[in-house]
């Protein structure tokens, strides 16, 4: 009755679209990455140059800086989001009237287009009429110019990311917290554990899979961040993340070969990072439960 051929037929439109628009581009990047190909170069077309692009990449200060900046950005943003999100989720486990309204408002930034998030924050920090530079100058005598000071630009990007994505962590943590059985917690309290011990030895192990999944997804997204930071700072100092750097090499400079090899390395780094986390989620989690 259930012929596998029918199954493949049902699956085929999906596979065709994903292969044409997902997998073929990947193969193409892989191919171009080993060639020298620049539209503005003296000779026309592609020229095979082996690993030259990758050799160049290792000494490319701009690229290495962009990786460092992306890592810094991801680290600061995700760490703050996890701590804050956990705390907020804890606050949402209590019952109080009006809770769902607060929750809806708290969720709102998640669905806002990244480019609009960038616009919102740009309007806040723009020198001349934004309230943030004005108040910082007035209250703390700080000169705040994200176009000039790289650290301020990076910090602003982190804060913007925290504003945008903390709700996500809150919601996943809330889902994790509400699935924790009550008995072990009660038992630990009866045995005389203090609040911190209950958290460290009971809540955290139970929360671990959700926590790691959340971090996994956040890392994936943080590495890909381009839109909102581009909108906020226009690729100014302190915000030249890898995604923006690739765009710069490929489009304004039309250095297709080199851009492709950067893409491959970025993809590779992402996959390795995700794979390590994936092992963290599936492997270690199991050991501890058994």
């Amino acid at each position, binding site marked *: *009755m259930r012929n*596998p051929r*029918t*199954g*493949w*037929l*049902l*699956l085929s439109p*999906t596979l065709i679209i*994903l292969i044409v*628009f*997902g997998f*073929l581009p*990947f193969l*193409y*990047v892989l191919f*171009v990455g080993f060639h020298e190909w620049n539209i503005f170069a003296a000779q026309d077309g592609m020229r095979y140059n082996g690993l030259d692009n990758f050799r160049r990449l290792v000494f490319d200060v701009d690229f290495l800086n962009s990786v460092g900046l992306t890592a810094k950005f991801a680290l600061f943003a995700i760490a703050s989001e996890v701590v804050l999100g956990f705390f907020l989720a804890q606050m949402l486990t209590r019952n*109080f009237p009006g809770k769902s309204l*607060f929750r*809806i*408002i*708290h*969720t*709102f*930034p998640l*669905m*806002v*287009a*990244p*480019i*609009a998030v960038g*616009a*919102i*924050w740009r*309007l*806040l920090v723009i020198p001349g*009429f*934004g*309230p943030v530079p004005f108040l910082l100058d007035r209250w703390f005598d700080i000169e705040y110019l994200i176009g000039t000071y790289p650290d301020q630009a990076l910090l602003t990007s982190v804060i913007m990311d925290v*504003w945008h994505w903390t709700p*996500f962590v809150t919601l*996943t943590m809330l889902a*994790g917290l509400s699935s924790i059985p009550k008995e072990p917690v009660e038992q630990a309290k009866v045995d005389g554990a203090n609040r911190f011990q209950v958290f460290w030895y009971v809540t955290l192990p139970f929360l671990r899979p959700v926590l790691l999944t*959340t971090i996994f*997804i956040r890392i*994936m997204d943080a590495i*890909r961040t*381009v*839109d909102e930071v*581009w909108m906020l700072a226009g690729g100014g100092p302190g915000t030249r993340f*890898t*995604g923006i750097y*690739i765009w710069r090499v*490929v489009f304004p400079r039309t250095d297709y070969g080199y851009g*492709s090899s950067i*893409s491959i390395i*970025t*993809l590779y780094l*992402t996959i390795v990072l*995700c794979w390590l986390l994936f092992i963290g989620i599936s492997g270690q989690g199991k050991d501890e439960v058994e």
Partner: protein
Amino acid sequence: MRIGLRQRIARYLTTYGFWVFMTLLTLIPIWWMFAVSMRSRVELFARPNLAISRIFLENYSNVLGDSSFQRYMSNSLLISSANAVLVMVLALLATYALSRYKLVGKDNIFFWLITNRMAPPAAFLLPLFLMFTRSFRIGDWTLFDTQLGLILLYCVFNLPFAIWLLKGVIDGIPIELDDAAMIDGAGLFGVLRHVIVPLAAPGLAVTAILSWIFAWNEYLFAANLTSVQARTITTALAEFVTVTGTNWGELAAMSMLTLIPSAVIVVFAQRYIVMGLTFGAVKE
């Protein structure tokens, strides 16, 4: 008793105080944008002030009356809606196949699906750009700068999550129901129409809604794979800053208009947002 009551009141006050504070943190940036959208160019450069002194709608009427903005808006609506419908239909078929048929390498296909979403989009800009401008060409027509191109492309990141989301839903429908319908003489599409679709309706709706918003929000591909005809609202926003420069009031007005669908979706599909963003790995 009195102490207990006092403690409870204190607890309520701290809880509310905290949440009111958090709500302000969430809303003040958006409120500021709203305030900017309500001001003329001259008023903007006065001292920053969160209060809105008068209703000033010129920014909105300028934006809404602009013919290229109307085109951006209708493009965005068309692309998001068509993509949502396409994703819903294809994901339904694909998930049904993955759930009910014995297919070789099913689990690998499943894992491969998710990798399509992991990739940094900037890495794929170049090949897609070249494919769109050169490979897909019939005479003078290319996929570059067409709505169709974006509709198909957005499937790449919407289909994986849609299938992950629907997998749980369709696996939850007992296979006996399919069999019973088949014994009654229903064909494959009869089963889909009379058994699967009605029972999976909420899941399908969520899939469509979230696909819609992801397509609506997308910027990077839209910006680089279109030029005039198929530009979307997010690219218009970005262009405002880089090209036209300083018309902040209109930028704010346009951003406010972009936010409307997000607000609607948060109110109506709030419970499913997390499932959509985590491939169903975290359920609420």
